[in-house]
């Protein structure tokens, strides 16, 4: 008689075969059989304090490793609480596998206790959703789920597991796999397409490379850098692409779009060829569509055919894996033995002139703590291989503008969905993947209040995440929009009523500190980063500081506002007085 295993045991063994190291989850009634099996299994489980943190942590784990992160929730509210994190992962193409408990099959559709239509709710938030109907099919469904999560354009997958399935016994029948699922990616271009792309590159005088998260997903940073170096084409990245190209590379233009640098957006406006790699021309990048790179021919490299011509019509699409496609382009360029046209040097000089005209900067002599200065200082003292996770809002944009990016898979940001509360749990997930690397969560005081309950988690498991709060006592980005676009009618963006974060940290057993003076920032940052313990630091930054440049909504990149309106003379005089 063959040995029988419970659905829970089959599930955990299937996860082991996918080389899953850690689960982020929170137990409940429907998943009790699974937690019972977990009691004696070899997979680590991190008990979060809210399922949303589990999904964000799994996302953070996936971004830094490239492997699917796994989160787990019970039926009903456990599952619905995962949805925001899954939607964020979908928007950013991050491989996450969510396991949700479900009421027993016999109770499904009967409005049982903690029953929710998890599959129905998950449809627009996942790449694929599975309902497992028998224990015997658990191994094959898990394999399909992991394969779907990483293949093509990666994304989140949900597996709904009725309690009866977790308890049911079945024979173990695992599909043959040697290890974790490897991604399968289509290739729809031909050699002729590649030659055409090379022609376009060689004919262009004012080309720009525009790289997105797809470069990081495909582990194609080296190829991208080689292409830039070979062709002398300057390169800008999206928020998702940050880290795929070193910030201090001479050809780096930093981030483009709504809060892109002046030189970067001007380069986009005046380029004659735009080569998009793993980017999706989203509205925060393009501004007004009809004036986006108006004079440029466009080449689009993307693994997802549905991104081609979705927002911007392109002249040539190369659908396929970014690494493979870039390698083909490089090989074709080298075969032609072509040198960059001399005009490209003039193009780089023009960009440099724009950069000198309007550099990304801030008032470095201000008496108060400028948030950009905090970011720069954190970046300066962080380890070379530090991972930084940001939340959403002004600090996220300052992070994008002022962090010194040196490597891929070290910048975590809920970019497409823009989900506040992401930064801290994502950092926790990243730290679980790389216990020995420095992981810094840079969060706003608004976003942090959405997921700070997981301070308990980092203390319980000694996860040494460093939490830096850029505290402007406001929902800063919303307040900025109210200031600029709604005539300073500040409605409910004031967060003056907030906890004392230092005391709060101490209540959880974490060392906390507050910094209120510019002169204290450097020492405080060095101390903050000096140990291997979870730490919190609360930077009281200038609440009036706004993110510039800014492209007003509906405007073209050329219409960006590069700096704040000039302050009143009286205020300037006051500043001078303080400076003395």
């Amino acid at each position, binding site marked *: 008689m063959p040995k029988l295993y419970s659905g829970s045991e089959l599930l955990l063994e299937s996860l082991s075969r996918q080389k899953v190291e850690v689960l982020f989850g929170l137990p409940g009634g429907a998943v009790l059989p699974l937690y019972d099996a977990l009691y004696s299994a070899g997979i680590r489980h991190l008990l979060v304090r809210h399922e949303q943190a589990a999904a964000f942590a799994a996302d953070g784990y996936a971004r830094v490793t490239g492997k699917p992160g796994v989160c787990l929730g019970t039926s009903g509210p456990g599952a619905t609480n995962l949805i925001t994190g899954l939607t964020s992962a979908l928007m950013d193409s991050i491989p996450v596998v969510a396991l949700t408990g479900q009421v027993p099959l016999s109770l499904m559709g009967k409005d049982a206790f903690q029953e929710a239509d998890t599959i*129905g709710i998950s449809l627009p938030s996942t790449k*694929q959703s599975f309902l497992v109907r028998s224990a015997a099919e658990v191994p094959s469904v898990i394999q399909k789920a992991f394969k*779907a999560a990483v293949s*093509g354009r990666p994304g989140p997958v949900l597996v709904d597991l009725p309690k009866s399935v977790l308890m049911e016994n079945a024979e173990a029948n695992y599909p043959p796999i040697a290890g974790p699922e490897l991604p399968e990616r289509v290739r729809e271009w031909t050699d002729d397409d590649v030659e055409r792309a090379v022609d376009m590159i060689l004919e262009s005088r004012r080309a720009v490379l525009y790289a997105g998260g797809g470069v990081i997903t495909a582990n194609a940073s080296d190829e991208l850098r080689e292409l830039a170096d070979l062709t002398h084409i300057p390169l800008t990245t999206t928020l998702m692409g940050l880290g795929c190209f070193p910030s201090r590379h001479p050809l780096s233009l930093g981030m483009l779009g709504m809060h892109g640098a002046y030189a970067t957006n001007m380069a986009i406006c005046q380029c004659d060829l735009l080569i998009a790699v793993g980017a999706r021309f989203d509205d925060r990048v393009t501004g007004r569509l009809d004036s986006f790179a108006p004079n440029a021919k466009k080449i689009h490299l993307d693994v997802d*055919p*549905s991104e*081609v*011509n*979705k927002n911007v019509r392109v002249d040539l699409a190369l659908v396929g894996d970014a690494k493979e496609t870039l390698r083909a382009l490089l090989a074709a360029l080298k075969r032609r033995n072509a040198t960059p046209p001399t005009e490209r040097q003039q193009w780089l000089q023009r960009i440099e002139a724009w950069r000198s005209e309007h550099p990304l900067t801030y008032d470095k002599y201000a008496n108060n703590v400028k948030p950009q200065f905090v970011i720069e200082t954190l970046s300066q003292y962080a380890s070379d291989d530090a991972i930084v996770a940001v939340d959403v809002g002004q600090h996220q944009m300052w992070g994008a503008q002022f962090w010194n990016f040196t490597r891929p898979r070290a910048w975590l940001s809920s970019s497409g969905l823009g989900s506040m509360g992401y930064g801290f749990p994502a950092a926790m997930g990243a730290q679980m993947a790389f216990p020995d690397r420095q992981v810094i969560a840079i969060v706003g005081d608004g976003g942090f209040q959405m997921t700070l309950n997981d301070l308990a988690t980092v203390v319980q498991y000694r996860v040494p995440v460093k939490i830096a709060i850029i505290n402007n006592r406001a929902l800063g980005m919303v307040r900025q929009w109210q200031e600029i676009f709604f005539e300073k009618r500040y409605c409910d963006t004031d967060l003056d009523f907030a906890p004392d974060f230092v005391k709060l940290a101490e209540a959880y057993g974490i060392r906390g500190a507050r910094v209120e003076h510019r002169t204290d920032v450097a020492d405080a940052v060095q101390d903050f980063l000096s140990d291997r313990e979870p730490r919190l630091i609360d930077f009281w930054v200038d609440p009036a500081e706004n993110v510039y440049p800014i492209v007003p909504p509906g405007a073209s990149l050329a219409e960006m506002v590069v700096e704040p309106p000039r302050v009143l003379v009286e205020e300037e005089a006051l500043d001078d007085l303080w400076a003395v």
Partner: protein
Amino acid sequence: MQWLLTLETNNDMISVCRLMNIFRRKNLKITTLAMTARPSAFSLMSVVESAEADLDHLFNFLRRIEGVQHVTCYRHESFRNASFVFIDSEEDNSGVAQVLKAFPESKLIFASHGKYLLEIPVEKRRSPALAGSRDPAFLPFACVKTTRSATHPELARVQA
């Protein structure tokens, strides 16, 4: 612009639910929708309205959805340029009989609940008989995109 989409999914109802959700989200106006189930697959045929500029994206979006096995997209054409005829006969099958009589070699691509998609033989496409089918229940289409490698896509041959 009017389009006809035929889709084949795996036999998981979740895939069909996902498709319906996508139709809604992508703002497709559904004029006609028919669906059939077989043990191993679901087949859908829908006449929809959507801007021509959105078609590329829509086709590519649908074809990369997990669980979708085939997508074919047909553009509403004049009878002169059509190679497929969609017939919505409701309870009156005389229209189908009329086409089948005029073109006995025509191929049934899809049939469900009185809705038929027929491929007209190449040599008969400019036939006066077809051009004369002015009944509003007859809609002529040309195949513009398909995930099938064969020149002429063929979906489920199912019971009418």
